[in-house]
């Protein structure tokens, strides 16, 4: 019961985040006249379709124009274009929520559709693929290396890791990606510089998959490279803080094997603060993915953002801003659950 209450509270807070972002986006769009332009574009597009349809049935050009004018007024009323922008805030929030933002100006989906929903949603799996793969790899390396370093504090490798962790705070992912392209792609020609598949893509399922992995190698390597240092450092420091507690000394005094002390008395206790730090690191990894995709021409949402900015495609930018917030909030909620599971105190204080 208490668990559900705690999680419900967190969920409510995160729903609040989504709403705040939505309102912020919609108010900005309304107050700057952006939403007017977007809706006018939607109306114009529907009018184009209607004109073609009506031209078949109504032969008299004057009557055709008259009918079209009436339809236009109807449509403008329907979209609320005749009212001031703040009266259509709720409707606009609904449109953003369902990604019902009409058509993109220049961007197209892979099969040629210009609906914003199609364009944005088909990119989601590619972004998820990049972020989750690199996150899993980083987590495995970070936990393993962090635990290893915590047992040899003050050694040269420990100090080196601290410095590298600090340095990775100053190394933007996109710049690391550019360096990797310059060295591994342009100079040594080991990896492709970007894209999803070679052109032409190889025949056969397995070969195609291998080709995809080969193309994903550099972007994933970039994301791992810029975040693994900080991860390792956080894990090491948290473990170290726990290792100095009395219950660990007590466990050692009882003669428990070192491996068991590490697993049960240090790792388990240090898990919640490590999870907190992972939550905080998520912001960076999502931002990093936007720019990394741009550098590697990886057809995810980040690259779409870059293309949408370049072609000034307003509807796509609104949709992407919302999608990124949604993804981020969803990921945070998963980690909140993890946190509650890991830390019994959270469960009890909630009662």
């Amino acid at each position, binding site marked *: 019961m208490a668990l559900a209450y705690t999680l419900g509270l967190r969920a409510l807070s995160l729903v609040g985040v989504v709403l705040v972002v939505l309102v912020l986006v919609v108010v900005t769009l309304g107050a700057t006249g952006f939403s007017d332009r977007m809706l006018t574009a939607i109306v114009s597009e529907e009018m184009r379709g209607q004109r073609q349809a009506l031209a078949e049935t109504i032969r008299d050009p004057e009557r055709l124009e008259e009918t079209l004018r009436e339809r236009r007024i109807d449509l403008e009323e329907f979209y609320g274009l005749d009212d001031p922008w703040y009266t259509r805030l709720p409707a606009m929030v609904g449109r953003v929520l369902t990604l019902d933002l009409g058509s993109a100006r220049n961007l197209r989906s892979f099969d040629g559709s210009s609906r914003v929903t199609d364009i944005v949603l088909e990119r989601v799996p590619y972004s998820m693929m990049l972020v989750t793969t690199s996150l899993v790899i980083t987590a495995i390396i970070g936990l393993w290396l962090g635990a290893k370093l915590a047992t040899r504090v003050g050694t040269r490798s420990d100090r080196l890791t601290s410095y590298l962790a600090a*340095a990775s705070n100053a190394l933007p992912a996109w710049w690391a990606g550019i360096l990797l392209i310059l060295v591994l792609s342009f100079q040594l020609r080991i990896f492709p510089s970007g894209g999803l598949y070679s052109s032409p893509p190889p025949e056969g399922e397995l070969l195609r998959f291998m080709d995809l992995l080969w193309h994903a190698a550099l972007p994933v390597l970039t994301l791992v490279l810029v975040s693994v240092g900080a991860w390792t450092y956080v894990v090491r420091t948290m473990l170290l803080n726990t290792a100095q507690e009395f219950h660990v000394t007590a466990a050692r005094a009882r003669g428990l094997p070192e491996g068991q002390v590490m697993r049960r008395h240090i790792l388990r206790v240090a898990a919640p603060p490590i999870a907190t730090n992972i939550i905080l690191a998520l912001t960076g990894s999502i931002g990093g993915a936007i720019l990394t995709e741009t550098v590697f021409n990886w057809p995810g949402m980040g690259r779409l953002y870059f293309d949408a900015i370049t072609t000034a495609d*307003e509807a796509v930018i609104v949709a992407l801003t919302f999608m*990124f917030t949604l993804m981020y909030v969803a990921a945070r909620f998963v980690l909140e659950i993890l946190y509650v599971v890991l830390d019994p105190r959270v469960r009890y204080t909630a009662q």
Partner: protein
Amino acid sequence: MRPGEALRVVLRSGSGRLGIGLLAVLVFVSLLVPFFYPLDFGLRFWNNPIAWADNPKAAPPAWTNLVGDQAPRHRVFDAESPSQTVETGPATTRLYSFTFDHDSETPPTFLSVSVGEVSFYDRPPVISMSLARPDGLTATILQEVVRGQRPDETPPVSRFADEPRRIFLSGDTNALTAATDFLLQEFGLRLSEAEIQGNLEAALFGTPTSSDAPEFEPLTGEYTATIRVITYDSRDAVESVRFVAAGGVFGLMGTDTQGRNLATGLMFGFPVALIIGISTSVAATILGTFFGILSGFSGGRTDTIIQRVSDVMTNIPLLPILIFLIFVLGQKLWLVMTILVIFGWPGLTIILRSMVLQVRSGQLVEATQALGASRWRIMFRHVFFQMAPFIVAQMIFFTPAAILAEAGLSFLGLGDPSLPTWGQILEQGFRTGAIFIGYWWWILPPGILIVITAMTFVLLALAMEPVLNPRLRETAA
């Protein structure tokens, strides 16, 4: 801990010394910039192609000549007064001679002649240019009459006052024809218009090796370019003359595809980066500290409201919102900084509140309260100063985040066009495809500078750790 003591602890560590050294360099360069640059540098020079016309395009730095092939040096000759004046009757010929040693196997990348303001009374002056080569031959490649007096003008007639008359010889039809004539006369080589196109420099700075194709053997040695301006009245005046034999290498940092001197752009980026980083982090820290202490101290509804707001704000992914807002509201640097401040303070507020709660329930506060100290005095004299080192460390830690956020935004093409930043230089390079052509001098330096600047503050934050955590201080000493 007093500030002096804290500084000593910071200086004791290697990262602290390195950080402070780097910061000193960054600040020094930044302070130099206002002396050498106009404030509207971005609009008037950096993003104005005319200002960079006489520079070679996409040329690597000059020091690359130390290794590998010898690319020709970039030569610009400016003269305000003629090197020689010859008077023949009413006509005066001003001769501007520029002698240079062309020692490269590669010809100059382009040639151009510019004439500054010209004023005349009677007949319009005639401008011509010839090139004397090491083999004794002289090629006349330019002959142009300044546009004459219009009916509505009264002498003295002034020409090219706003902008010098620039003749880009490498693309000038008359110059190409003149060069074809020169080759036919001296070497018997007949070239079509298409064949001389793009080969003007090779032809002028070489000897033909074939009798019917545009193939030339480089000719090194001393060249003299002479620009003649013939005027027909003693009161006529010529302001200045410039001749450019563009090189294959340029300056300290090379140029981009527009010919912009990357060294100037990179140098201008120093103060911009520091201002972005420091002012946003200072503002965000002040806000965060104020709300954190207020929230922890007042409790009740104020506390709840501040905590709820902070909680929501820290949960918003910054970069997507930043991209959206800048795209909609306009590409202004102050806007970027404002948004970074608005989203930057809540993190600190949450941490400080929990610290205040801890301190408030401590004995020190209780004792000062018993002594009759006011709320405000306790808040600032006792609570704030106890947390001051931590706040400073947080401020330093936030600085690189702000610099990197701006750089990332610029890299997406949302930089402020009136102020060139490192991120923008990188973005232009990336968009032009510089990484795929191998223009490393365009891509590497801005990124390295961004990383070094961010690194400076990270090192300082690292050195602050012993100040915050006495346990670490003992082990470090």
